[in-house]
C-alpha cells in the first residue's frame, strides 16, 4: 500500500520533490504573514487589560508553538534516521534545527519584551521560561553535534540520539504552566476545550500560526536540499544538475 513512497527515497527524487514545495510554501507564508500581521497589529481589538502590548501575541504564540512543532518533526525524522537508516531523515534533522532554534529565540525574546511591561521583569526563572530556554540549548546541541563529525553518518546518528532524548522536554514545556506555579498564563488555544480568546483576536493569530508553519516548511526544505547536494556532491546526478544549472545561467 505504501510502496509508492519508495521511489522518493532516491536522493534525486527527494531533491526534486522538496523543490516543488518550496515556492508554494514561500508564497503561502508571505500571504499569511501580510494578512495576519496587518490584521493583528491594526485591526484586532486591544486587550481590555493589556492594551496594545498584547499584540506581541501575534509572533510570540506562533513562534513558541512552532518551536515545539519543529522539534517534534525533527525528532520523528531522527527516529526514522536511527531505525531505518534513511540518510535524508538525518539531513532533515540538520536542516530544521537552525530554523527551530530561530523560532525558539523569537519566542524567548518576544516573551521578554512582553514580560517587561506586563510582569515588570524581562526574565524570571520559572518553569515555562526555563524549559523553553532548555529547548534552545537542545537545538544548539543538535546543530553543534551534527557539525562536530566529518563522517556525516556518525554525525546524523549522534544528532539524532540527542534529538530523541530531548523529546522529554516537550511535555515539560507544554504542561509547565499546570504543574508548577508560574507567572506565565495557561494554554489558550492548544487545549481540548474551546479557545479562551475572542474570535476577532483568534483569526489573525491562526493566520500567523499558518504563516510560521509555511515559513518553517519553506526554509527547512531549502536547507534540506542544500544538505542533500553537499553530501551527494560526488554523485553524477548532482554534477549533471549543477552543470545544467550553470549552463542555463550562461
Amino acid at each position, binding site marked *: 500500500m505504501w510502496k509508492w513512497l519508495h521511489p522518493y527515497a532516491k536522493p534525486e527524487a527527494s531533491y526534486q520533490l522538496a523543490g516543488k514545495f518550496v515556492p508554494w510554501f514561500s508564497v503561502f507564508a508571505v500571504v499569511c504573514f501580510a494578512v495576519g500581521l496587518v490584521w493583528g497589529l*491594526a485591526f484586532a481589538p486591544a486587550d481590555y487589560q493589556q*492594551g496594545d502590548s498584547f*499584540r506581541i501575541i501575534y509572533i510570540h504564540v506562533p513562534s513558541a508553538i512552532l518551536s515545539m512543532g519543529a522539534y517534534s518533526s525533527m525528532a520523528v525524522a531522527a527516529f526514522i534516521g536511527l531505525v531505518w537508516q534513511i540518510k535524508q531523515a538525518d539531513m532533515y534533522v540538520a536542516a530544521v534545527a537552525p530554523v527551530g532554534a530561530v523560532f525558539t529565540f523569537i519566542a524567548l525574546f*518576544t516573551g521578554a*519584551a512582553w514580560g517587561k511591561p506586563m510582569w515588570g521583569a524581562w526574565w524570571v526563572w520559572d518553569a515555562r521560561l526555563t524549559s523553553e530556554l532548555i529547548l534552545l540549548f537542545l537545538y544548539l546541541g543538535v546543530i553543534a553535534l551534527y557539525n562536530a563529525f566529518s563522517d556525516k553518518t556518525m554525525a546524523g546518528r549522534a544528532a539524532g540520539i540527542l534529538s530523541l532524548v530531548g523529546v522529554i522536554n516537550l511535555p515539560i514545556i507544554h504542561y509547565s504552566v499546570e504543574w508548577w506555579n508560574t507567572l506565565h498564563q495557561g494554554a489558550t488555544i492548544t487545549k481540548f476545550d474551546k479557545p479562551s480568546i475572542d474570535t476577532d483576536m483568534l483569526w489573525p493569530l491562526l493566520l500567523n500560526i499558518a504563516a510560521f508553519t509555511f515559513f518553517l516548511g519553506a526554509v527547512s526544505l531549502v536547507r534540506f*536540499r542544500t544538505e542533500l547536494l553537499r553530501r551527494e556532491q560526488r554523485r553524477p546526478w548532482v554534477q549533471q544538475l*549543477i552543470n545544467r544549472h550553470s549552463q542555463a545561467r550562461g
Partner: protein
Amino acid sequence: MQFESVSDFLAMGGYAFYVWLAFGVSAAAMIAIVVDSIVKRNAIFKSVARQSARQQRVKAAKEVTERL
C-alpha cells in the same frame, strides 16, 4: 481599524518600545535565517561547479599527455 492615525498606530497605546522591539528583532532573526539559507545554497552550487570544471581540466590534460 483600531487606531485614529499613523502616529497613533506607531505609539501602540504607549507600548511602542516593547511592541516594535519584539516585532523588529523577530523580523531581523527571520530575515537572517532566510539569507543564510540562500547564501549556503548558492555556495554549494558554486563549489560543485568549480570542482567539476577542475575535473574536466584534469581529464583534458591527461588526454593531451597520453597523446604525446
